[in-house]
């Protein structure tokens, strides 16, 4: 099998691995690097559980080949908290009881993170749009929408 090198920055740390050519980023992250925070819910691009942030953009790691990420900067949910302190989004998900089984949660948080990076004070419609590629089967979405709106409010209070 043809192994190819992949090298990128993951949550601030340099990572270098050899993977089979054609390996998805999702597999590389989970099986090679050991970051299991992105989840494989469909491998079709229809559930969003594998969402990660690549160079500032929300991407589906299940449809992204690892070797196309050379030199990229990648953020996953496991890299969101710093020094044991939860990111405001993580805090908001906790406080809003926005997780049940938790399987969609890392992907939801990634989608929300990108939204808030570009739109610090989103409207409800903007939150709905930002989460629209992510499936949740437990919550009925409302607590998740509320969590993102709450995180945005707490962010803007921080800034002020």
């Amino acid at each position: 099998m043809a192994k190819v090198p992949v090298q990128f920055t993951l949550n601030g740390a340099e990572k270098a691995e050899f993977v089979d050519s054609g390996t998805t980023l999702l597999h590389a992250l989970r099986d090679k690097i050991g970051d299991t925070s992105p989840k494989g819910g469909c491998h079709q691009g229809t559930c969003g559980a594998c969402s990660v942030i690549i160079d500032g953009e929300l991407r589906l790691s299940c449809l992204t080949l690892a070797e196309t990420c050379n030199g990229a900067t990648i953020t996953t949910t496991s890299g969101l908290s710093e020094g044991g302190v939860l990111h405001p989004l993580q805090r908001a998900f906790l406080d809003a009881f926005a997780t049940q089984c938790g399987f969609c949660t890392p992907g939801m948080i990634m989608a929300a993170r990108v939204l808030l990076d570009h739109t610090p004070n989103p409207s409800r419609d903007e939150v709905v749009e930002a989460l629209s590629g992510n499936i949740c089967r437990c919550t009925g979405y409302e607590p998740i929408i509320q969590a993102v709106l709450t995180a945005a409010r707490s962010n803007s209070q921080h800034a002020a």
Partner: protein
Amino acid sequence: MAIRRGRGVAAINYPTGMNLGGDPTQALVHSTPTGNFMVTLSSVDLGQGMKQIMAQICAETIGVPTDRVVVDTADTDTGPHCMGTFASRGTHRAGNAVIQAAREARQVMLEVAAEELEVNASDLETDGEGNILVKGAPQKSISIFDVALSAHFKRGRSISGRGMFLIPRSYPEKETGAMKPSTCYAHACTVAEVEVDDETGEVTVLTVKNIFEIGRALNPKMVEQQLVGGSWMGISHALYETTEPYYPNRDHGGTDFNQYLMPGPGDLAQTEIIVLERPSADGPYGAKGPGEMCANPQIPAVANAVFDAVGVRIDTLPITPERILRALKAETPN
């Protein structure tokens, strides 16, 4: 084009636990040397929050704060038998087993405390904050931390308990069907308000008002989680979901989340949840199982609301725009 509005109601009940019983669950509880408590089970947490609820039940029964309880579950090498997490049985069956085990452990804990305080165990009570007090003389007390240390290193007592809950199995009588399906029932009534586009058959659920009677809301925020998510799933069942859209024809079954339809975050009805609590006689702190029934009443309520709006009955699920449009066209032939 006309957008027509209607509303419908439905009322239901739902049995708690595996139908006809015969579904045991066990629990073990023991204290650590510093007075924390371990609950050992083999029940599975599906995301509904089983672990958290078992911790709260154990904590209440022992008389300690919930954060002093750790739940170890879903391991067949360590956890005693549980029939499984299904049929709205988790909280009811495992909860009862945990209470029984915790009571036994509490009794030992009180006996050790009684020896330390030189009183009768029956004269002691817990303050829920980690202390054991003499009834009527709360200045005479000992912390559970110290009781556990004493039990382990001084008195050689195991602060532990075993719990087993079993509803005896009922066998339906062949000719009459006499049987005992369940020991307690949860209840619900839902009113749904919809808009129907009579040119496309599209339905928008505007509001659902759900009243659920669930015995006891052991953790109200977690109950709310399940009820809100369940209400969404009920609406989803009513209007969207099937693996075989042309049943009984097997063709065109969806294979992904694009084809398997469920309401998206832009389709949410304004949802109101009201909870009543009539404690069940055999439920842990009166709890019944809310997990399944919360997704049922929305289906007929939405169906009845669609009729109220456009005057056609769709008696086949899901109530798709196509079924509504066909019914409307059948009523007023061109």
